[in-house]
């Protein structure tokens, strides 16, 4: 889905064929699932196979990331405090979020957390597809895109809002939606 200037979904793009159709459905309101603590307004919920992760408002203006497993009755915090965690995303199996500019990856199946050093989380959430994360990265000159499998897009101008599929990287540059076909 690509958005117009007012940030409402405008066109639907099929990732493989790149066929484009207009989106006539009204914008979907932010989901308000029955979660406690309640999701902070304007944030996205990450729905994985094993549960749901979301952002809640914490004290002193910091955000918190919470996890509600389908197998457990009570939610638990994944990260709270001054690291200001936000932008939870999922590839369906694992979860990732931004913590102090880096990316934390959480596997609910074994409760393991990994850290990816990055300089991100200032604009759009990372993209998480089949275990591969892609994120915006601030450099001294501009914003580029980097991915956890080593793919990187570094060129003049700002490349933002990455969305990764298996062989493609979609991103925004100068108000336009670009697609990078990475097939050999």
């Amino acid at each position, binding site marked *: 889905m690509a958005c117009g200037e007012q940030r409402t979904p405008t066109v639907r793009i099929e990732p493989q064929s790149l066929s484009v159709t207009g989106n006539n459905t009204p914008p979907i309101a932010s989901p308000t699932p029955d979660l406690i603590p309640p999701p902070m*307004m304007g944030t996205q919920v990450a729905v994985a196979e094993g549960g749901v992760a979301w952002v809640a408002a914490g004290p002193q203006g910091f955000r918190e990331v919470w996890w509600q497993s389908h197998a457990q009755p009570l939610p638990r915090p994944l990260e709270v405090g001054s690291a200001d965690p936000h932008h939870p995303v999922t590839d369906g199996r694992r979860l990732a979020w931004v913590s102090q500019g880096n990316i934390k990856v959480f596997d609910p199946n074994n409760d393991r957390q990994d850290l990816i050093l990055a300089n991100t989380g200032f604009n759009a959430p990372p993209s998480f597809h089949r275990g591969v994360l892609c994120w915006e990265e601030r450099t001294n000159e501009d914003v580029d895109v980097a991915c956890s499998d080593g793919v990187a897009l570094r060129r003049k101008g700002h490349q933002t809002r990455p969305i990764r599929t298996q062989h493609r990287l979609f991103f925004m540059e100068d108000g336009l939606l670009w697609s990078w076909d990475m097939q050999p």
Partner: protein
Amino acid sequence: MIAMTVAVLGLISAVGAGRWIASNEGPTEWAHALVAGLLLWGLVGLGLGALGLITPLAFGAVGAVSLLGWTRGRLTRPAWATIAVSACLVFPGLIDALGPIMGTDEQYLHVGLPQQLLMHGELVGGPLHPNGSRPLLLQLVYTGLLSSGESRSLACFHWLLSVSTVALVIQMGRHRLGGWNIGVLAASMLALSTTFQESTGQAASDFPTAFAVLVAIDAVATGRHRSAMLAAAAAISIKYTAVAPLAGILLTAGLRPLLAGRLAVGALLLVSPWWLRNAWNDLHPLFPFMGWPDPQFSFQFAEKWGAGRSLIDFLYLPYRAVFDADPNTHLFHGRIHPLLILCLLPVPLAWRSRTLRPWFGAAALGLIGWAAGPHWLRYLIPTLPIVALLGAAVVIPLASGRWRRFGLIAALLCWAPSGLKGMEGRWSETRVAFKDGLPAPAEAIEFCNQHLPDDATVALLFDWNSAAIHRRQVLGSVEDHNPSRHFFLRHADDPIGALVRQGATHAVVRTVNFPKSHYEFLDPNRYKQEFTAPLKTMNHSLLMEAELLYTGPLHRVYRLPTD
């Protein structure tokens, strides 16, 4: 109901204050006292602001002391019938006044600025608060009302001033121009105009200016020179658009040159504290309308409004301003009743009448002054009551006899839909607001009020929702988002650093564009430099240095880096 009670108390208190200094005589003495009271409150507010005493307690004390003015004996008020007719004519505005704050100027200036003054406890101004560097007579009165905690009391107070203006029009028709029917016709022509009705229900400045100008002409006509001076000073301190009709009164009232000079100097001296305040702060006395610090900058593009500014456009202006005007576009951005202009056709006859000469002068210079500036019909409101009264005073004697009178009334009613074009949309908005409750503020505004720290200072970039965000603010909006555009032009090298140094902790950004079609009169390079470049600088610097906290359909909220 509480808001209206606060507004009524405010009005009574202002009249009380004015009774200490206004001339107390004649059927319109209530109006003279009210204008003088507003002037006094504004100047006292300026003093409080200079001392850092803008607090509810200080305003409460001023209001209480003002009430003592009522101990100075009885006050003549308009007849109940006059008050009732006036209230009926502006009744639709009352519904607006009791509804949500919807007007753009209300949000950034008339409610937004008083809210900031109360938060800061002192006056604000300069390029970070350009609206705070205007003469703030009316905004300080509004600040006093807002200190009660009732934000709708400001619009209610303005609505009461609108009723007062119409009541004064009716009174002046009767007592100064020879018949109540002159006043009623003039008031009806005004009330059947979209530009007039639209303004009555919002906290605004055009009606208070019109009211003060009317009091000035009444004072000159009745030889109450101190009141004339006070009213002229009040009118100019509320809005500079009063200067043209006031100059017309002064030049054509037949005053001795020495007296006219004394009145003008006296009025300007009473306005001068505002200019001195700007000069003290190293600003041009007329900032923000002139003298922006580098880079040079125009406050307003007159060419943006109306139907053109060539010689032929000016010749057609009276016709186009009435019949082509569209309340929803820059094509005069309003609508007035056609009779208001048609009644002026026989007005040259008025020049022979000694009574009507100052009215003629005020109307003529008011109209010329308006034509010289941006062709926005709202800016004509300070002159419109005089135009209406002059037109009615000339036409009513010509409409003697049953058939002519019938023709006049038929013209008034048949052209009403033309004069009120565009009001149906406004009324429908109000109806929806009442039926479905107050519209929720934009989500981004709600986000700020819910999630930003209480001590946050928000930079409002290209946005005018000042009244809705309950945090300290810098920048905000006016005209073509001048504060933000100027800031990014002035600090193009390090705009975020400059914002942080000024104390901003967060930024609310509205998604805007400046359609090229609205600025065809500008050189393409200037358009690019003044309109496109600031947006580009802002987006680049926010992306590189700030953190996006919230994205909505129209707004983004950022956290700025710490110093």
